[in-house]
């Protein structure tokens, strides 16, 4: 495989034609979608088995909801996710594990327990996180959250050009990560839909995702059941799967490579369909009209 466009996660190497599902397993009692679904550790492990069977390539384990309140400190965050990461690593030695955290203390413990990737959704708020990624030899997601502190909801956010803002932030973070020693092929950029953005911003970013892809950095998108989908359709959080999958298909077509998702099976099917349409994979089985 040519090194151009290669993404390395754990021991895996992915060419630019591969579209990966990052399954969400939240170790929280109060995330916005199906709150508390995997709060119980045994249930969470069952969920891991389920999403692996459904075709997840990456597991994203988080311990802090994106929304306020209920402050979760680093010690509690570690308690929530680190033993669980270790348990998943024991059960799946080869599965790519991502820790959804912005804190370097948590990242360090997560990597020691077996994480391959640090998913920093809050735009480099803790600059030491990149140093942890570098010292542990893991990957890093460089995202755009509009410069606000973690767990802040957008309030009257405005950008002269949101795509330019996302580009300058994520490329700056990626450059900083490379300078800190993170392997170039282990870095992704994420526009972070809805983070520090209103729905118009997230729709614009989806529409112009190709501009992020054109930078050459692998693009991760986190679209699943988010408010921009809900507001596009005026639908509550439990009725956004179709809209999410539509945004997933568009993003895949425009070149995104990692898709953070609650609905793994459906996302896998969407991505495989897009890959078949683009000719990146063969269709599974073709006999129609060929008998």
């Amino acid at each position: 495989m040519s090194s151009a466009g290669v993404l390395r996660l754990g021991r895996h190497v992915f060419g630019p034609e591969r579209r990966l599902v990052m399954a969400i397993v939240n170790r929280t009692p109060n995330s916005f979608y199906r709150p508390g679904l995997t709060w119980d550790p045994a249930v969470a492990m069952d969920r891991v088995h389920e999403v692996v069977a459904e075709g997840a390539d990456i597991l994203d384990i988080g311990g802090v909801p994106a929304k306020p309140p209920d402050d979760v400190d680093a010690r509690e965050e570690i308690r929530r996710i680190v033993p669980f990461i270790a348990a998943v690593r024991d059960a799946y030695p080869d599965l790519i594990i991502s820790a959804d955290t912005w804190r370097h203390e948590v990242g360090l413990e997560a990597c020691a327990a077996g994480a391959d990737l640090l998913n920093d959704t809050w735009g480099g708020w803790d600059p030491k996180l990149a140093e942890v990624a570098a010292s542990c030899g893991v990957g890093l997601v460089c995202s755009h959250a509009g410069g606000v502190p973690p767990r802040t909801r957008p309030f009257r956010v405005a950008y002269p050009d949101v795509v330019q803002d996302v580009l300058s932030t994520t490329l700056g973070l990626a450059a900083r990560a490379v300078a800190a020693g993170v392997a170039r092929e282990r870095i992704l950029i994420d526009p972070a839909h809805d983070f520090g953005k209103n729905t118009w911003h997230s729709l614009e970013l989806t529409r112009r995702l190709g501009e992020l892809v054109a930078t050459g950095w692998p693009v991760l998108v986190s679209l699943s059941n988010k408010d921009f989908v809900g507001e596009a359709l005026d639908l509550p959080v439990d009725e956004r799967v179709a809209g999410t999958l539509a945004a997933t298909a568009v993003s895949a077509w425009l070149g995104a490579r990692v898709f953070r998702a609650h609905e793994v099976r459906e996302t896998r099917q969407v991505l495989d369909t897009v890959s078949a349409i683009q000719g990146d994979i063969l269709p599974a089985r073709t006999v129609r009209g060929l008998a």
Partner: protein
Amino acid sequence: MIVGAALCASPPLLHPALTGRAVVLPELRAACADAVARLLRSDPGLVAVVGPAAATGDWDPSGRLDPAAFAPGIACDGAGRSALPLSLGLGAMLLDEGGYRGPRRLIAVGTDEPASACAALGAELATGATRTALLVMGDGSARRSLKAPGHLDPRAEPFDAQVERAVRAGRFGALLDLDEALARDLMVTGRPAWQVLAGAMPDGGAMPDGGARPDGGARPDGIEIAGAPVAEVLYRDDPFGVAYLVACL
């Protein structure tokens, strides 16, 4: 002279590149490969692939099937080469896969060619001194089930059974009696090619030019032949509502 013949199925899905990531009908593909392997054991000086196409005539022996006609965008061997009609392209592919590098003719026989013309073409193939093996491509009815390409036609089953009986018994002359209009109705593609076979290999086992397989004589592979040519059916089924028949004679 005819030294051997094989009947093979000719659906596009025989080509491995056309069925995606799945291996579809491996048993049909294996039967076709087996039939061709046996055919090549007859030590031919020429293999004549006979298959239905829009019009009768020879095609460039170096031609191949262009799978892109069925699957635009796929990359595989054969793409861009002189594109053969489906039946001949699949026959050429089977010869390639069987490792045959000797002389070949690729003979299209028009889908509307009457039985008499088909038989005459077959007789002509049998008259020369060249040790000729026939690879006959074509399929039975495509109207054998509710999900078949042409839906279900109750006349399909007896039609295909008539063909199979004739092949098994070595009574190829019976193939000349096939109803051409009915064959067309039933979406049978093999009719003209089978009738070329009938012209090349008369009934009763007497080989053209009286020498290839005399009663009690020995085939080149040493197998004793007595009476009618021995036809062995290697595959007969209709998994997609199309009758596939693979046999070696």
